């Protein structure tokens, strides 16, 4: 029940990765290394094609990174600095992932002027709110696609259009949507898009950044050395990791619709099973949100104990992922949750392998634990 944190690698992905390791392991010295080098390049290009196909874009617009954290940093800092001579105003949201928020905070310290937009109570950004804060010196808007805590989906088509009209770059953190929702880069006017393989059944530690070329988007690198990846992201390419990402992208292309239906039915089943608990609250837009995530809060229950009580069902809490204990989620706070509601929030997230029996067990454990903790609480 914690697919939004990381997904297990698909067996087909592991096979694709092992083929690469196998090349290096078994054949490294028996065949022409020249041929090996070309084989490695072929693997990398093939994977670029697989990812390009998934996103409906040309493969040469894709840069490999170590994950969405790095992609976000590269896109945002790279674009902000590349355009700093034109203006220093940047826009993002309060409900972004830490990798975006902390990157903007660092830019704020460097003298950039950041506007932090709040969503509606259901987590959705009102387009007019964005239009209102655009300025002549605005250079970049960064808004995520699917929120990792609530599953709220932003209207990135409309955001892209607005940005393009105003000659402002649009970066989108799509870590939670690539491979899960349809993304057509010929349709969406996004200039920079971040993704990471381990959220869609690929390996951990490999991601990509899409950089549009129509119009041409220039960004600065954030690390230096060697000419790899158009000098934007130096370092030896991890061939097996890239092969894994490519394979995951190919599988996602083929199975996306089936998976969407599957997670939808899992979420409906779960919500049906717990919605009658007294004082339960669904966080984020429940109509059009991504169906792989369900975020709920209950009163009179402490979050960390709730999670331990549900063991062995693994869920994520409303506490932030950083090390500070019980820091209530900045996302839920931005949706207007009190910190006490936020700390008791639970994120259930589902994927390909989630079964109805898993859901039923989760329902049982959740109900049991909420009841137990309420029964020993001083308030009850």
């Amino acid at each position, binding site marked *: 029940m914690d697919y939004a944190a990381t997904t297990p690698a698909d067996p087909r992905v592991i096979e694709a990765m092992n083929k690469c390791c196998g090349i290096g392991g078994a054949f490294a010295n028996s065949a022409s290394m020249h041929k090996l080098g070309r084989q490695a390049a072929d693997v990398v290009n093939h994977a670029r094609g697989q990812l390009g196909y998934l996103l409906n874009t040309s493969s040469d617009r894709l840069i490999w990174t170590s994950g969405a954290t790095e992609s976000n940093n590269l896109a945002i800092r790279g674009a902000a600095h590349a355009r700093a001579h034109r203006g220093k105003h940047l826009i993002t949201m309060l409900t972004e992932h830490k990798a975006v928020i902390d990157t903007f905070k660092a830019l704020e310290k460097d003298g950039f002027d950041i506007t932090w937009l709040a969503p509606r109570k259901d987590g959705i950004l009102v387009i007019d709110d964005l239009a209102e804060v655009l300025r002549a010196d605005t250079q970049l808007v960064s808004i995520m696609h699917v929120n990792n805590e609530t599953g709220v989906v932003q209207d990135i088509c409309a955001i892209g259009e607005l940005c393009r009209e105003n000659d402002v770059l649009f970066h989108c953190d799509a870590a939670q949507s690539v491979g899960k929702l349809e993304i057509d880069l010929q349709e969406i006017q996004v200039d920079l898009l971040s993704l990471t393989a381990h959220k869609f059944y690929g390996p951990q530690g490999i991601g990509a950044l899409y950089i549009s070329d129509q119009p041409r988007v220039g960004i600065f690198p954030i690390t230096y050395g060697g000419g790899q990846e158009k000098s934007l992201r130096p370092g030896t390419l991890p061939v097996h990791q890239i092969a894994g990402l490519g394979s995951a992208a190919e599988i996602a292309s083929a199975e996306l619709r089936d998976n969407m239906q599957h997670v939808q039915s899992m979420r409906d089943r779960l919500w049906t099973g717990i919605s009658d608990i007294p004082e339960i609250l669904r966080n984020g837009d429940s109509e059009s949100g991504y169906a792989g995530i369900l975020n709920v809060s209950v009163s009179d229950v402490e979050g960390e*104990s709730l999670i*331990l009580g549900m063991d062995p069902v693994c869920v*994520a809490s409303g506490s932030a992922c950083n*090390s500070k204990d*019980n820091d209530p989620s900045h996302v839920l706070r931005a949706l207007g949750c009190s910190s006490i509601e936020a700390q008791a929030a639970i994120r259930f997230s589902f994927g390909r392998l989630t079964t109805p029996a898993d859901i039923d067990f989760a329902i049982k454990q959740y109900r049991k634990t909420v009841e137990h903790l309420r029964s020993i609480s001083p308030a009850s």
Partner: protein
Amino acid sequence: MQESRSYSEEVLELFSNLDHAGDLTIDSNQIFVAEVHESEEGARLVLFVCVNKGTIAQMRFRAWGCPHFLAGAEVVCREMEGVRVDAPYDAGVQYLMKRLDVPVQKTGKMLLIEDAAQQIIAAIQ
């Protein structure tokens, strides 16, 4: 979101068997209550004690808090029950933190348990 936290075997055992959570089942005219709480989202603890013939006959708690906090409350109740009211009991925060392997950032919360125990001891002596 949350990173996997790890708990000691003992915390897991205590958390699964909060035998002293709930209300007193013995009636007496020597009942004492201590109540403590941190900030809203921190922790709350109420200790209930029933004294009989100079001995802590029963001890119960109600709590809202993390597993370490609940386990700490359970430890204190288990250890104080059956003890004479004039016997020294020093289940201080240091002792609880060490025994339950509590992360240092929870010190403030665990101090609440010491506070509540001290209040009870002061009241019953």
